[in-house]
């Protein structure tokens, strides 16, 4: 676990995984979602550190604003990843919450400002990712298509697959 954390931090610091600035409003929204998921549990977050090896090995790129491990009284609750993906006109922000075993517990859209493609923020659609743990993820088959939101949906599916595989790799 400590090595995992070390790996992630160095990876982020070296710039292989582009990490962008976090805004307080994003944290506020994320915390609200975390409260809903982990009802009443007091969560502490620890940013993860990464290793050099992960850096060069990672060929699948995605954009993250931060990867954290979540704890309640020293028991791991899982992981929190802030993600940025591209829609047709502009990017959007969301979080992926993973279980300690790195299967998706929840995906929540934090900010979707574009006029197109906002349908992917629907919980009914995002629920399809729950339990996802790194199998090949095909938009239109494994995840239902969203009419009128092809760009955002395809982008999100691709990035969720990339980051999940990445997390699994560095966990080993």
């Amino acid at each position: 676990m400590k090595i995992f954390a070390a790996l992630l931090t160095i990876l982020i610091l070296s710039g292989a995984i582009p990490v962008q600035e976090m805004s307080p409003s994003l944290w506020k929204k994320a915390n609200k979602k975390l409260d809903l998921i982990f009802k009443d549990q007091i969560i502490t977050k620890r940013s993860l550190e990464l290793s050099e090896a992960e850096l060069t090995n990672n060929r699948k790129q995605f954009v993250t604003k931060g990867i954290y491990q979540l704890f309640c009284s020293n028991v791991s609750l899982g992981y929190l990843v802030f993600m940025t993906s591209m829609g047709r006109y502009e990017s959007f922000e969301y979080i992926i919450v993973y279980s300690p075993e790195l299967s998706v517990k929840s995906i929540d859209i934090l900010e979707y400002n574009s006029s197109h493609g906002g349908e992917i923020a629907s919980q009914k659609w995002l629920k399809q990712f729950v339990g996802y743990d790194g199998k090949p993820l095909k938009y239109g088959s494994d995840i239902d298509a969203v009419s009128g939101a092809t760009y955002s949906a395809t982008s999100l599916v691709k990035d969720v697959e990339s980051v999940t595989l990445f997390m699994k790799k560095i966990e080993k």
Partner: protein
Amino acid sequence: MRLLILLIAAVLSFTTAFAQEELTGSKNSSERLMQDEKSPLTIGGYAQIDFNQPTGGGSYHNGTLDVHRMVLLFNYKFNDRAQFVTEIELEHVNEVTIEQAFLNYRILPWLNFRGGLMLIPMGIINENHEPPTYNGVERPNVDNKIVPTTWRELGAGFTGVFNSASVKYQVYVVNGFKSYAGVTHLNGTNGLRNGRQKGIESFMSTPNLTTKIEYFGLPGLKVGLSGYFGNTQSTLYNNLDKENAAGKAKADSSVVGVTMLGVDARYAKKGLEFRAQYVMTYIENSAQYNIFSKNDLGSQLSGWYVEAGYNLFQTKSEIRSQLVPFVRYEQYDTHDKTAGNLLRNSTYEKTEITAGIGWRITHELALKGDYQWRKSAADSRYSGQINLGIGIMF
């Protein structure tokens, strides 16, 4: 404990900022691409390249090849709330127009102000016309003739999405079709299509209202209901004395009232794709307009189509591209009804069947081919056409 977390958070934000500095150093191309997401300017576009070959009958037919559309899209973010979206289009290589040019200002998460040159929300294709997103080389003729796509006008209004209710709405006040501007523009062959002002020094006699509501609460399904209301625009009202009764009567005879209602649905599940659309247009005052214009505009225009397709690669998990055979049945009529002494022209009542296949290599690139059977109510036989095309978006 809280202080410790606060301290860690402070250190974290500092290190993240430091990481930002690092990022401006050497980066590979994908990192640089993603770095552009921070740039306020997004560039995109789409293109449609066609080959059309009429077939059959006792005559020779030339085929046509065309860069039907080449569109560049720019999105500029002024800040978190305000952005400007524009699409510059080249049609048939030498016609330059602007498809969109509007400001979007987010007031609340579910309320955006929008103003400028905007796509009228009617039907599926008018707003969703990137070539890789629809079946068939050409856009459906129901959209071409009845909607009429690409229909965009200047105006202002509001739009937003209520995510909890899975509802998207749009309501704008826009300028209407021009029915008279030195020459008359509306007739039986083209319906309202030649009345589109497209933002080219548009003029407005009376405002028109366009609205659409869409529901996407059921997985895979998206349904929309559109309404467009207003009188057409005429230059005869310009500088017309309010006391001039005869002048007013003449101006009134150069406009018609338009009430257009549309319903559309898209459904996609497990590789199956369905689309259906129905548009009905009521034209008021067409009889007077036809006397004034010596044209043959109908009093009711309508069109509908149903389409079904299936992705042959659906169950092949190792194949990421999609191979989609499809079939579409369309009917449209610009003389659904006529008023006054005008007789319905049966050559305006069309039936078209399109059957083809599309290979969507990625969600941004499609190779398409189809065959179309077309006839009017006046024809005894269908005429045919082969279409091949490349459709891209980025």
